[in-house]
């Protein structure tokens, strides 16, 4: 769409000389200023991006490039000053991924089914209410989600905190992201496809499962990965719910489990004076960005390459 405009835009100036002369200098000036401002806004927005990436990469890349970073946990970590080894972040990387995975397993089915309801079934008040609630859910501050789960999990049931508790809090944050993007995708499926299927006597649910979902599959995957990326980078609920552990724990349902944000938090008090702690902090920050970016990228690539299907 926008490309067309650009092809048309210069036409009046070039071909209709008379009209162009009719433009006062002031109008042309305004036009040029607007162009400069708009280009400028974009370029200025790149400054913080570059600055952040530079900050994190220049400080966090070197610990991250060490193979031990990916292979070892923080087992045997000593007090700063006694301890000259950065060691690894495997426990935190695995923990982050596991917590986010646990979240996805619960959140994606709920989100996708809700989106199906909204697009395929929902009519009237009920649909509007649910759609509204999805919006509200997307506005629930992450710290409130953490508080909520803490109250249920610990205060009410008195259960031992574990990785799954964190997953549950993140479900609240993931559902709206996945639901909204799935909804958008389902809406894009042409109605003709559905009608053709009905005309062949295929029941509605089979139509949805065999026609609608496959058509929008790539979009749903993209949305899910974006949701995954969002919860993987989330910190606030983990401050309340996740019990950091320096050891690798591969069981989401038992024991303390580390995550990259809590690894950062644990090493924060010493980082101003202890280069080893600082390396861990920036290394973990760098890894977290990288993780989120890679997942984002995969999501986008899937979206890009499978688009043809629809």
């Amino acid at each position, binding site marked *: 769409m926008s490309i067309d405009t650009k092809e048309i835009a210069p036409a009046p100036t070039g071909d209709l000389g008379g009209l162009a002369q009719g433009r006062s200098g002031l109008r042309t000036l305004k036009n040029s200023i607007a162009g400069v401002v708009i280009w400028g806004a974009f370029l200025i927005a790149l400054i913080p991006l570059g600055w952040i990436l530079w900050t994190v990469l220049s400080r966090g890349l070197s610990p991250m490039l060490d193979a*031990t970073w990916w292979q*070892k*946990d923080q*087992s*045997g*970590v*000593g*007090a*700063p*000053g*006694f*301890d*000259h*080894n950065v*060691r*690894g972040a495997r426990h935190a990387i695995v923990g982050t991924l596991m917590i986010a995975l646990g979240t996805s397993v619960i959140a994606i089915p709920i989100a996708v089914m809700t989106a199906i309801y909204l697009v395929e079934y929902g009519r009237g008040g009920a649909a509007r209410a649910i759609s509204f609630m999805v919006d509200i859910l997307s506005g629930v501050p992450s710290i409130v989600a953490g508080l909520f789960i803490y109250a249920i999990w*610990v*205060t009410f049931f*008195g259960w*031992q*905190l574990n990785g799954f508790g964190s997953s549950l809090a993140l479900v609240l944050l993931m559902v709206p992201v996945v639901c909204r993007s799935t909804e958008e995708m389902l809406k894009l499926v042409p109605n003709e496809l559905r009608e053709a299927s009905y005309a062949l006597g295929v029941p509605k649910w089979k139509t949805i499962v065999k026609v609608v979902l496959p058509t929008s599959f790539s979009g749903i995957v993209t949305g899910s990965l974006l949701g995954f990326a969002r919860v993987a980078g989330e910190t606030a609920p983990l401050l309340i719910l996740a*019990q*950091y*552990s*320096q*050891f690798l724990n591969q069981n989401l349902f038992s*024991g*303390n489990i580390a995550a990259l944000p809590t690894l950062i938090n*644990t090493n*924060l*008090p*010493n*980082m*101003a*004076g*202890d*280069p080893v*702690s*600082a390396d861990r902090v920036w290394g973990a920050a760098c890894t977290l960005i990288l993780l989120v970016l890679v997942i984002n990228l995969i999501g986008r690539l899937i979206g890009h390459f499978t688009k043809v299907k629809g």
Partner: protein
Amino acid sequence: MAGPTDFIVWKAVLLKITRIGRASGLAVAAALALSACGSASNDDSSNTANNSGAAASSSGGSGSSADTSCFSGSLSAEGSTAQQNAITQAISSYQAKCNGAKITYNGTGSGAGITKFIAKQVDFAGSDSALNPDKGEPAKAKTACKSDALDIPMVTGPIAVSYNVKGVGKLNLTPQLIAKIFSGKIKTWNDPAIKAANKGVDLPGTKISVFFRSDSSGTTDNFTNYMNTVDPANWPDKHDKTWKGSVGQGKAKTAGVASAVKATDGGIGYVEWGYAIQNKLDMASVDGVKLTADSAGKAVEAAKVVGKGKDLSLKIDYKTKAEGAYPIVLVTYEVVCSKYSDATKAKNVKAFLSYMASSEFQKQLTGVGAAPLPAPIQSKVVESINSIS
């Protein structure tokens, strides 16, 4: 990045010197200890690599690992940030001896530690203050444990009054000056009152920026208790975990205060000694007494045990007249059950805490900015730990 690298080298040299001074040739013992305990685990390489320093110094004391009882399994604890570095080091050296022991400690704050202990989320809690009867904590802990809970003092962490004034490497403050600065009554560094306490020091006219902990903290509790005790006229508020002053800016956690003081010319704040060392902050003397392990230890010696039975709550005498005592100290406790419903848990807690209380480990504490327990208290602590079942 020259600074930090210099620091590593300097620290390494210093550690080596102290180690050699303390016990000659005990690296052999350390190596033996390592090979004796740690062949089973897959994390060997990392342990051997990183603990060459820590383990060597840990065995520097009595040199024997025979009296350390090992366990394999996991223990989880949470609480005070004031003892985080100390307990991290304890876990590290203990793990070097006992590779199967997986102990985690989360430094989330004393309150969190006690809350989680009461909610049966952790096996023991680290706290800057003993369980508080006013809040019904002992009773709640008793319900959680199904037995009395004990406060066991373990790490005495002096609180450093850290400052950052360009060109001033040595500063002496009196208790009144501390109260006046933190209550905002003294506003610049060249105030006549400060000058009077620092003859011969060239103090600039920089504005004083006070930093305090914005989170609820045992360090704040102890520090305000100190000011209220020594100078109630200038600090009338009773001790509290949240800051009650009317000047200054709050920073989240020790990390926030330490880095803010570090970054602000004219800044002053209170941080646990260990973090002041780690962040290379200048520390003020109190009444001419510099903060050292010795001077802090003297203040702890003057403390009285007020706990009943095996409970060892201490009361610090901030006004202590003991010669050369640095009075602003904070005792952090390990809060444990006197009887665990799970016998293995009891055994594990006992094994680890016994190691922490041993002279072997207590000697290491100065390296992380804490003072060793004075001998009379230490023996009571050992007795208390042994009573856990």
